[in-house]
């Protein structure tokens, strides 16, 4: 049956390379995209590149607020920053990672439900997901303070059902209070960044073709296997985007640990905040900011590379 051979329709070379090879002259002359990029680039230069340079140079200055700071190239400040605050750095990464995992655990089923099952309720549910943004970040965190506070019904219920004992056993709280604990901080972070997890997940699950899941079922995959081999890998782009959007801001957050934590739950953002605004040790604060930045970029790069090697579409 050589006649059924149809290799002539098979694209041997990637379509992209042939495309750009045939029309290089016309492509290069097209400047419109670059013109359109210009405002964005300018914006980035003014509000990102310049501040980064300022921050970097500031971290290498010495002096005091009264006498003024001069650039001395003092690299030692980084050593100081790391040795003094490595604990808060590690804690920030740990808390942010926990909050990200929790947000994924809560967010995935919710996003799946909204995208695949909610039918005509879809839009209302999506509005509800972003509803918290209608109030300010600070007010929401303060509200959580009230909810978890000692006399509140949540704390009372937790105590009567011995959930507090369990939390204490897990070293998430230090006594039978919910407030001012690791538990409260991670809860706060999770809650705050949950919408950032749900929305990208929703976007990728919404696009998921239900017929592929049916096909998996037709090919002997139980619902659990169909999820593992089809739904999950196809939603990975959303998972990656959602975890990044949750993890990155959570790692630098300082409000939650300040309002919901105690002295043993201080996160690096809180330290930077204090160094900049109260201690007025600008070089140290700048150095800490830089360390945090490099740490996050490194972790994200490793993560994205690892996720990229899995079957991303």
């Amino acid at each position, binding site marked *: 049956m050589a006649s059924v051979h149809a290799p002539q329709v098979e694209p041997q070379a990637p379509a992209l390379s042939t495309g750009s090879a045939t029309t290089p002259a016309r492509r290069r002359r097209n400047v419109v995209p670059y013109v359109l990029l210009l405002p964005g680039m300018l914006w980035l230069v003014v509000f990102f590149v310049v501040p980064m340079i300022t921050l970097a140079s500031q971290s290498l200055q010495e002096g005091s607020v009264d006498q003024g700071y001069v650039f001395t190239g003092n690299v030692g400040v980084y050593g100081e920053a790391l040795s003094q605050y490595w604990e808060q750095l590690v804690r920030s990464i740990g808390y942010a990672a926990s909050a990200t995992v929790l947000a994924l655990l809560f967010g995935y089923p919710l996003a799946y439900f909204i995208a695949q099952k909610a039918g005509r309720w879809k839009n209302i549910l999506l509005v509800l997901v972003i509803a918290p943004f209608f109030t300010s970040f600070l007010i929401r965190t303060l509200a959580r303070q009230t909810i978890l506070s000692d006399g509140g019904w949540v704390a009372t219920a937790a105590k009567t059902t011995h959930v507090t004992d369990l939390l204490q056993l897990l070293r998430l709280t230090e006594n039978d209070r919910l407030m001012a604990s690791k538990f409260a901080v991670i809860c706060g972070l999770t809650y705050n960044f949950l919408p950032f997890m749900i929305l990208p997940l929703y976007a990728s699950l919404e696009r998921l073709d239900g017929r*592929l899941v049916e096909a998996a079922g037709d090919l*002997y995959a139980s619902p659990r296997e169909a999820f593992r081999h089809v739904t999950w890998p*196809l939603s990975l782009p959303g998972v990656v985007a959602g975890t990044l959007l949750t993890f990155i801001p959570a790692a630098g957050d300082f409000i939650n640990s300040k309002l919901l934590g105690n002295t043993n739950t201080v996160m690096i953002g809180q330290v930077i905040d204090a160094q900049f605004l109260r201690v007025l040790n600008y070089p140290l604060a700048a150095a800490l900011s830089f360390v945090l930045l490099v740490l996050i970029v490194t972790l994200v790069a490793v993560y994205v590379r690892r996720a990229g090697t899995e079957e991303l579409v």
Partner: protein
Amino acid sequence: MAGHESGDLRLAGISKQFEAFTAVHPLDLTVPAGSFFALLGPSGCGKTTTLRMVAGLEEPTGGRILIGDKDITDTRAYQRNVNTVFQSYALFPHMSVVDNVSFGLKRRGDKNADRKAKEALELVQLGEVARKRPSQLSGGMQQRVALARAIVNRPDVLLLDEPLGALDLKLRRQMQIELKRIQSEVGLTFIHVTHDQEEAMTMADTIAVMNSGRVEQLGDPATLYEHPRSTFVANFLGQSNLLRATVDRGEGNGVVEVTSHGHRLEVRRDHVPAGVRDIWLGVRPEKLRLGDSGGPNRLSGQVTDVSFTGVATQYLVRMPWGRELVVVQQNDGSGRARAGETVTISWAAEHGFALDASQDADAGAQLEDDHG
């Protein structure tokens, strides 16, 4: 390796209701093991719904589904030894072609999944694209991957939902031959859904013609073509000339005499349903002869159109009462005519068939030349 002790597929009174709308009316069907069965019908008649019920992707409103003696009605799709080639292929975009094909085998823990997947790809002549992604293949290649992905599991029943729909005519003919070859090679039960009557007739052992959620007629292609039992089948399977007639009496030589627009005509007695008086008398275009060499039945009319199609020429002949009959003559040197000429057409008594006149003469006709 799943055995082949399978047995026939039986649908017993199976039906499907979508809210108030009945997509499939209670349906009884038996598909013998190892046969090539075609479900033929116009768009929206319930073919896909029927297949989905067999696959376990749609829960029937009533009735039972059995393979051999095993009642599979209440099992889930993944528990059934049935595979589908989907109308939309539904290939997994994040997997390579060979991973797509080995998917089913791996779910069942087959140790030789990869080897078998490669063999299946060879069978559909796609061995060399095993490592590519489905999106890098042409539509026809994707369709063959979908086929390989289903066949490789050696299911009791293979369901094909218009698997050749996206192909051009030439590739479609090749794939039809290929499918038929694969079916006889691996000996599976195929249920092939199509709305292309030619495809159904060339491929299937048995055809069920569906219309609005019901099976109109079931039989082998020749029987359906020669002895349609409804105007829908007569028009949907090929073309038919239908003449309004009344039965006069059943006399001699096993023929029935009928009168159509004042002409006395004969039909074989066993081609006339018992007990009806008003009938549609049907004759296939290629059974009509220009001139009077065709048989005792004769009508005359005026040629209004002549179209040459290569092996044959098609004439439209207008009857005095206005209806146009289609006559197809082989280009073998026999009777020719030109537009405007008055001609006699004739046919033999055994070439006519009679249908109950209470039906719409044009039922099923609009799709007759849907696919060239």
